[in-house]
Every structure is written in C-alpha cells, then in structure tokens.
C-alpha cells in the first residue's frame, strides 16, 4: 500500500487557505432576493395580530409572508414545528414573518417595521416545572409536556445492587452549547421555469432532505435538486431541517425569484440548534475488587419549544450507559419535556459527551472507594475483541485496553498520579476517561447504505461519484485515496463528485461517524470492480493470464513489466469492437441491524474506542483551570490519512475542551444572554495545550482497509477526563459544566480547600 496511512493534505485545503473557495454566503445569482426572518420577541405568547402594512411600504420589498400566506405544514421529529408561527409562539426563535427584498438591509428594515401584538402565556423554563401536574401545556394535545420517554434495561439492576460492595450516586448537569460554525446557516432557493426547485443547501442529509422538504412545501421529491456548496462547518447542526429553509422556498415561490437567507452571527447564536442540555442522575456499583456490577441512569432532557434531533440523543447515550466497559446489569430511563427554551439538535457526539461525563466521573469515584488506581479499575472492566455487550453491540475489533495503556503512558500517568503536584497557589493533577461510539454508522433508518460510481475516462482520469457528503471532515480526500490506491493511480488522477443530488446516488447522509466506513466500503466495491474490468480487458487483449496482472503507477503491470497504460487501455475499450465504457457502480449496506423496540441489537457494524488522559493546573485564588496537556489514544481501526486524522483528533479535543471549560450558551427565562463571540467563549489558539495522539490500529475486519469512523470520537471523553484531573488536583468533584473559574472557586471554597478571600 502506498497511499493508505500517508500524510496527504486535504483536497479542499488550498482553496480554503487562499480564500478561493466560494461559500454560500458568497454566492449571488441573477435576480436574487435576500430573505430576512422576523422572529418572536416573547418566549410564550398568543399572537393577537401581525400588521405587515409598514413593511410592504419599504422600498425594494417584494414579499412579506406570515403564516396566513402559506400552507403551514407541521414537520420535524415530533411534527410539532411549522415554518411560520400563526397563533402562538413557544420560544425566542419563533418565526412570525419573512421578507424578501432587493437588499438585505431593506429586508431587515421591513422586518423591523412589522408590528406584532402578543398576549403573554405562562412560561415554563425547566423540565421539573414542565412535568408538574397542571403545568402550562406548551403544545395542545401533548398532555404533560412529555413528547418522548426512553426505557432500556438489560440484566437485573436489583441483582447488580446485591452484588455490589460499593455504590456511588450523583447528579450531573450539562449545559447548552452551540456549534459556532464559522459559516452561519444559509440557503438559496430557486425555481426554474418548469417549477423544479434547486436548493443550494448546507444540509448533511441531502436525500432525506429532499423527501422531508417536499412534504413541507407541497412538492414531489423528484422535483427538488439539492446542491451542496463548500461549507463552513456543520458538526451535526445541519442534520435536521429548520424553519428558515422552507421559508426560503415559500419566499422564492411568492416572488418568483431566487431567494437567499444567510443568518447573521447574532441570529446564528440565538436560532441555530444547540447541544442537548440535561440533568443525569446515575447510580453505579462495583464489587470489592472493582468489577462493575450495575448502572442505573435517569435523565431529564429539556426539549425546548419544538422537537429536533436533540430529543433523540438518548438513543446514543444508552449505549454508553449499557456498554462502556463490562456492565452486567443496566437500566436507563429518560424523560424529554417541552419548555419555552430554545430547542436542541444534533452535535458531534450526539449525547455521548453528556453520558460519558457522568459514567467516567463515577468510575473515578468507584476506584477511590475500592482503593485502586483509576487506570487499574478501567483496565479490569474493559472489553476485548469479540465480546458482545448486554445491549447486543458486537465488538468485532476492540482496542480499548490499548487505548487506556497508551494514554496513560503518553501522559506519564503513574508518576503524576502518585503525587499531585503542589506549587503555592497552583495545584496540578491528571485524570482520564474513555469513550465508546458507533464506528461505522448507525442503522436508524431501514438503510444505512451508500452508493458509488467509479468511471475512468479516455485520458485515464478517474471520477468517483459518491452519495456521501463532505462537511469539511475530509471524506473527499480519504475516498479519493482509497480509489487511487485500488486503481494504482496518483491522487491527482482522481476527482470526487459528491455535491449534487441530480448526479450522485443515494446515501443516508453524514452523521454517526459513518462516512469513511460506509462510503469508503462503497467506493472500494466500485473501484475493485473497475480494477477487475481493467485487468480482464488487458488479459483478453494481450492474451495474458489475468491473475498475473496488477495496476500500478497508471499502468497495467505484469510483475515489473508495463503491459499497457491505463488511459490507452480505456481508449482501446472505447474504440474497439462494440465499444465499452469503464464505469462501475456499487451499493454498500453495512452489516448492522435496526434495534428492536427495547433498543437491543447491533446498531453499527463496528465501534470506536478511545481514552484521554488530561493534565491540569488549578489556580486556587481565582479558580482558573488550565489544561497543560491532553494525551489521546484512539482505536481507529486503521490510519487512512495520518494528517487528516490528526486534524480530526485535535479539532475534537479542542471542541471537548471548550465544552469542559468555557462554552455555555447562557439561557435565562428562554432568552439567550450571550449571543456573540465576545460573551460566548470559544477556546482560542493560545489556550490549546499540546495534544499527544496515538492511533491504535485494530484492523477492523469489516472496515475499508481495516478503518473505522472517528469523526465524533475525540470530543466525547474530554470533559470527564478534565473533571477527573481537577478532582485529582484539588480533591473537589465537579458535576456541572463548564468548569468556569467562578464555578471552580465556589466549589473550592465550599469544600474548604481554600479560604474565602473575602473572609
């Protein structure tokens, strides 16, 4: 192998680095109008009247739409959202009207000129209040504000309790976090003269998007073409349809013009989805030696005013409660409740950061009770290749033990763990945590498959048309590598087409760390078929034994001897006899199953594992936590591209550190208090610590070249490792994120570790 595992720069890198890449916000088409949305000023109110007369007077305005002007079709996972809100608003994001105008400023001015009269309704801001008897009903007919519950169990928790020598119990509170994509949400909707709709969209799921959008705007899916332009980040935020997207379609339809909507940064903070906030109550037990006996989890999720994918994160979280380490008995119960807060979507890790924070914090507590090193307790309970978990997850490859040992070694665990360093006002400590996540997609639909077409033209240029989607994670590059490897051509001979539903075959979309695995296997099938076709043709043409032929350096080879050039052979195929094209296609469906009603079943064909060891420094007088180093070991199956893998790991770790230390979208009474980068604190380059990374190669038997997905993995266990390190440094256990200086100082004072400086 020559390309697999190499350090190959991303194909889209130069364009992005030089500013040549054009994003949707750069894209203007002739006749295009700008759409701006008028949102609610209230979090829960009846809309008494909407007066758009002043908006229509603004120069340059082509259309002003309210709920009365469109067929308002309910949509979303709970079918509880609509593009425009007519009679009632339920959260601060709510779309009341939309304007299309010649300029963005005219549209914004018209929006401001719309007069809305409200009659406030009693609001609900917490899950606890939402579930109280007699609480205000946020959606008529959804009694008890309880759209969803999730229940899962294996084994017998009572037996697990009985088998336990030690039991720990606690509550964990996880915050709202937002994606902070560098490119804000955007869409361009344009109808052609035959009524076909082209959506230039940032969606992560173009084919499901066509189907869902068609239903919302009253069209046939085949009349909708989705074009996916280069994207400034997604991280899960574009997995669902949000109201602004059908609104753009309605505006385009009403004005007979292309309409583009681009969120302002403020709008992005207030109105794009968040990571699901929640409260987790967990009991964990182990025997006298430290072997886990049971986990019993109860979760309360704030659904916000409407349902998006955040409400379905329990599906992923239960895998961590049931299957991260060997857990003989597990129980999981979740309530998802409507409130008048903003609603959450999908976000890299899909609930797993939250679940892992609770599980891995309690592993340290159990280790302390037993009196063993946290590393030893984890090694004692970690699974091996070939094991099947209580939930039915089958670990056909499992490098968890290697991850634990490698992270410990990279971090200098044993020496640092032995004595937490103390230096005046500063204390140091190390902590660790591991993760388990799907590594080859998740079969949540009937198909989790992906189609590919490989063609080789008469000049030897190879084109891969893949159903999959690149949202910046680098799948285009990795897929090109795989095809180039099989066909024995250089990277620059392969072109990947992945951005037009009129051209590309079906794929579920980019989520669940599935693209390298599923689209990779799919591309490999088509590439291998193309290879077979080439070798057969060469064998026939030159009357050579096919088994002795291979592809390398752009040639058909027989041993070290060049038989024919690839392009020449393709031309011969085209122009000789009846002629033949070198085009192959494939469909790959992973060997996973849709889980049953009790959530049992092997939902992914393989699983990703990882361990992070984190060293921190805590300033006692300010509560400031500084991360000194992160040592991350990940079971990636096989390294496909060492450079882009490191990029994924580093990006994920930094995202996890932001979740741990600084990032919180602060919501008070349903309103966003910090809708700007000034007050929403992303980590910036100077605070990013050294990140040591080791790839554990378990060579997954089903993965392309042995690889498994790792897109979400590196963000998942950071927070738990940081909290465990802070505990090691200070002796104080923090169960609420982020670990802001104020929260930490309050905790240190409350625990008596430091004296109140004001006392």
């Amino acid at each position, binding site marked *: 192998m020559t390309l697999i595992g190499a350090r190959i720069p991303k194909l889209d890198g130069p364009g992005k680095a030089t500013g040549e890449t054009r994003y949707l916000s750069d894209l203007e088409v002739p006749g295009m109008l700008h759409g701006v949305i008028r949102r609610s000023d209230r979090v829960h109110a009846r809309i008494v009247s909407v007066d758009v007369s002043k908006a229509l007077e603004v120069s340059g305005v082509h259309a002003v739409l309210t709920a009365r002007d469109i067929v308002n079709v309910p949509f979303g996972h709970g079918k509880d959202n609509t593009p425009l809100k007519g009679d009632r608003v339920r959260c601060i994001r709510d779309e009341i009207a939309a304007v299309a105008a010649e300029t963005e400023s005219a549209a914004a001015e018209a929006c401001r000129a719309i007069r809305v009269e409200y009659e406030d309704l009693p609001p609900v801001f917490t899950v606890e209040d939402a579930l109280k008897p007699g609480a205000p009903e946020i959606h008529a007919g959804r009694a008890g504000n309880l759209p969803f519950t999730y229940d899962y169990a294996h084994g017998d928790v009572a037996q697990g309790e009985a088998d336990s020598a030690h039991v720990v119990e606690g509550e964990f509170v996880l915050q709202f976090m937002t994606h902070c994509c560098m490119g804000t949400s955007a869409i361009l909707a344009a109808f052609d003269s035959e009524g076909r709709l082209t959506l230039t969209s940032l969606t992560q799921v173009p084919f499901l998007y066509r189907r869902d959008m068609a239903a919302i705007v009253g069209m046939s899916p085949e009349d909708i073409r989705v074009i996916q332009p280069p994207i400034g980040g997604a991280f899960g935020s574009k997995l669902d349809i949000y109201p602004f997207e059908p609104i753009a379609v309605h505006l385009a339809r009403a004005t007979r013009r292309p309409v583009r909507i681009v969120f302002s940064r403020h709008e992005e903070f207030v109105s794009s989805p968040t990571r699901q906030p929640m409260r987790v109550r967990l009991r964990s037990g182990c025997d006298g030696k430290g072997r886990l006996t049971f986990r019993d989890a109860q979760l309360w999720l704030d659904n916000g005013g409407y349902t998006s994918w955040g409400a379905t994160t329990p599906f992923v979280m239960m895998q961590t409660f049931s299957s991260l380490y060997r857990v003989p008995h597990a129980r999981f119960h979740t309530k998802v409740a409507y409130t008048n807060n903003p609603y959450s979507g999908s976000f890299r890790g899909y609930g797993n950061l939250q679940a892992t924070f609770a599980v891995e914090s309690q592993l340290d507590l159990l280790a302390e009770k037993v009196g063993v090193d946290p590393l030893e307790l984890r090694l004692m309970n970690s699974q091996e290749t070939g094991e099947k978990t209580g939930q039915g997850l089958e670990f056909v490859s499992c490098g968890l033990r290697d991850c634990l040992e490698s992270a410990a070694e990279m971090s200098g665990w044993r020496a640092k763990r032995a004595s937490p360093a103390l230096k005046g006002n500063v204390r140091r400590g190390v902590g660790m945590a591991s993760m388990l996540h799907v590594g080859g997609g998740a079969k949540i639909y009937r198909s989790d498959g992906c189609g590919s077409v490989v063609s080789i033209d008469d000049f030897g240029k190879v084109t891969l048309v893949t159903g999959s989607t690149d949202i910046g994670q680098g799948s285009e590059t990795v897929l090109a590598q795989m095809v180039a490897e099989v066909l024995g051509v250089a990277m620059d001979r392969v072109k990947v087409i992945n951005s037009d539903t009129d051209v590309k075959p079906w794929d579920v979309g980019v989520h669940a760390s599935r693209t390298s695995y599923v689209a990779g296997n799919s591309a490999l099938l088509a590439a291998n078929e193309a290879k077979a076709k080439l070798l057969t043709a060469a064998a026939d043409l030159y009357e050579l034994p096919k088994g002795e032929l291979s592809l390398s350096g752009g040639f058909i080879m027989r041993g070290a001897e060049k038989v024919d050039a690839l392009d020449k052979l393709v031309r011969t195929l085209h122009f000789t006899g009846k002629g033949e094209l070198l085009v192959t296609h494939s469909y790959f469906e992973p060997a996973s199953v849709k889980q049953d009603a009790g959530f049992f079943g092997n939902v992914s064909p393989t699983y990703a594992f990882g361990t992070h060891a984190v060293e921190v420094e805590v300033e006692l007088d*300010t509560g*400031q936590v500084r991360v000194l180093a992160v040592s991350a070991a990940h079971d990636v199956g096989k390294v496909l591209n060492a450079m882009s893998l490191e990029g994924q790991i580093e990006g994920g770790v930094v995202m996890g550190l932001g979740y741990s230390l600084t990032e919180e979208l602060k919501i008070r009474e349903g309103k966003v208090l910090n809708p700007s980068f000034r007050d929403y*604190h992303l980590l910036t380059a100077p*605070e990013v610590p050294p990140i040591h990374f080791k790839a554990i190669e378990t060579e997954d038997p089903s993965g392309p070249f042995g690889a498994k997905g790792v897109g979400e993995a590196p963000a998942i266990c950071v927070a738990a490792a940081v909290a465990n390190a802070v505990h090691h440094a200070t002796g104080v256990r923090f169960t609420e994120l982020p670990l802001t200086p104020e929260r930490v100082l309050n905790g240190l004072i409350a625990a008596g570790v430091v004296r109140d400086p*004001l006392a």
Partner: protein
Amino acid sequence: MTEQGYVRPDNLAGALDALADAPEGTRVLAGGTDLMVHLRAGKRFPRLVNVARVSELQALRVWGGALEVGAGVTVARLLRDAEVRRHAALLWQAADRFASPLVRSRATVGGNLVNASPAADLTLALLALDARVELVSRAGGVRSLGVDELVLGPGKTALGAGELVRTVRVPLAKPTAFHHFEKSGPRPALEISVAAVAVALRIEDGRVVEPRIACGAVAPVPLRVVPAEQVLAGRELTPALIEEAALAAAKVVRPIDDVRATALYRRRLVAAFVRRSLTAALDSQRVSHATGS
C-alpha cells in the same frame, strides 16, 4: 453613516475644524476596534472624524519629565517601545494583556480612554500611573485632566464639544517604583476583564510610598481603591498588611452581576489580585535586598 458624515482630515488643525462644527453625537474614529462593532450592530453616528492621518497624534517619546503618548499610538506600538517598558512598565503590562494581536495592532491609547469602558485595560494602568490627559479644541485651546476626571461612566467622558484627546503624559517611573497588572480570564487573548487590578507604588526605606491601586470592571468607571492605598501608605509591606489592603480593596469596589460573572466573584478576584500584586512587590523587595541593589 451617511457619505457626508465621514471626514478624514490630514492634520490636527483639520481634525479640530471637523470637530468644531460637528453635530451632536459625532465620534472620532481611530483604530475602530470599538466603533466598528457599534456600526456593525446597527448604531449610527451623524459624523465620523477619522484621525488616522493626523501625525500630531502619533508622538511617543520622553519629554519634559514624562512619557508622552500620542492618542493615536496603537497598543502594538506601546509593546514594541523600550521607553514604555522602562518608564511605564504598568502600561506595558496592560498592553501585553490587551485583547489579541489583531486588535492590538489597530486599537489606540486615545480610543481606549474615550470609549470609557469600565473594563478598559490601558485606562486602568494610566489611572494607577497618575497620567494626565491633554485635550485640545479649536475654540478652547488645551486643557489637561486626570484619568478619573476624564472618564465619568460607561461610555461617558468629560470631553466637551469639539474636543479631541491629543496626548497622554505619564510621569516617569522612579528607580524605586514597582508596577504590577493582573487580569482575569481563561483566555490569554480576547478577554474582556471580569476584573483587573493595576498597582503602582514605590518602596523607599522599606516603606510604601504613594501607592495607587486601580480596579477595572468592578465599578461604572475604572476605580481607585483609596482605602486600600491608605492602608499601605507609609507602612512596611508584610503579609498581614497585604491581607488588610486586599480586603479593603474588595470592600470598596462596586461590582455588578452580569453575563460574565457575579459581583461576589468579582470582589473575590479583586482581593486575590491585590494580594498577588502586593506579594509580588514584597518578593521584588526581597530580591533587591538579596542582590544588594
């Protein structure tokens, strides 16, 4: 902003002319790091006077027993200047913790003063350094104000109609001077202070002389904590005295709860930062004793 509302004079006289007949609400544009944020947020001003080309605002020199800093001097230039580091270490330290490299290359000393943010880092240092701010206008000539006379409240200054900040004069630090700047924040860059403390004092014959302690982001204006200064003046620095001064400072500040932190945490930070600063002073004294200097 309308087209006629933007002027870019080539010299000080032109700037003063542009300000002299300016409509109410006119703002001076220098680095634009605060003003552009307001503009992006939709705020409009009847006139903007861009002083980027006014060379008279670019002085940076030792002159007449003081460090003279032109209002148009950028934070990045302060950081590059050896005289600033030597004669006004506190200003240099504040500049070093100021925003990010990008912002530092645009933001100016005059802008930081006139923006009148309670969290302004340079203003805090200039207050502790007892700097004088020189204002000029076409009608009124020159007048000079202390920092606490210039900055009256959030976004509010004593600048009169037609007046422009020309220079800031910072007394040169004596050899016995000790300067220390402390600022909160998880991020070394781009942090708006939750609290900041600037300390300037001298230690002569083992005693604290003319201590000036200024606290940022804990009152409507950068605030001198006079009771804490009084605790220190004329006394010998000891851990007990440091404790007393830290508590006095924390008591006198008037912080608020906001999205960045609670008032209680800000008070605790003031105590911690005053303690750190004075402990550093004590340590520096020990070092100078030990080396016999």
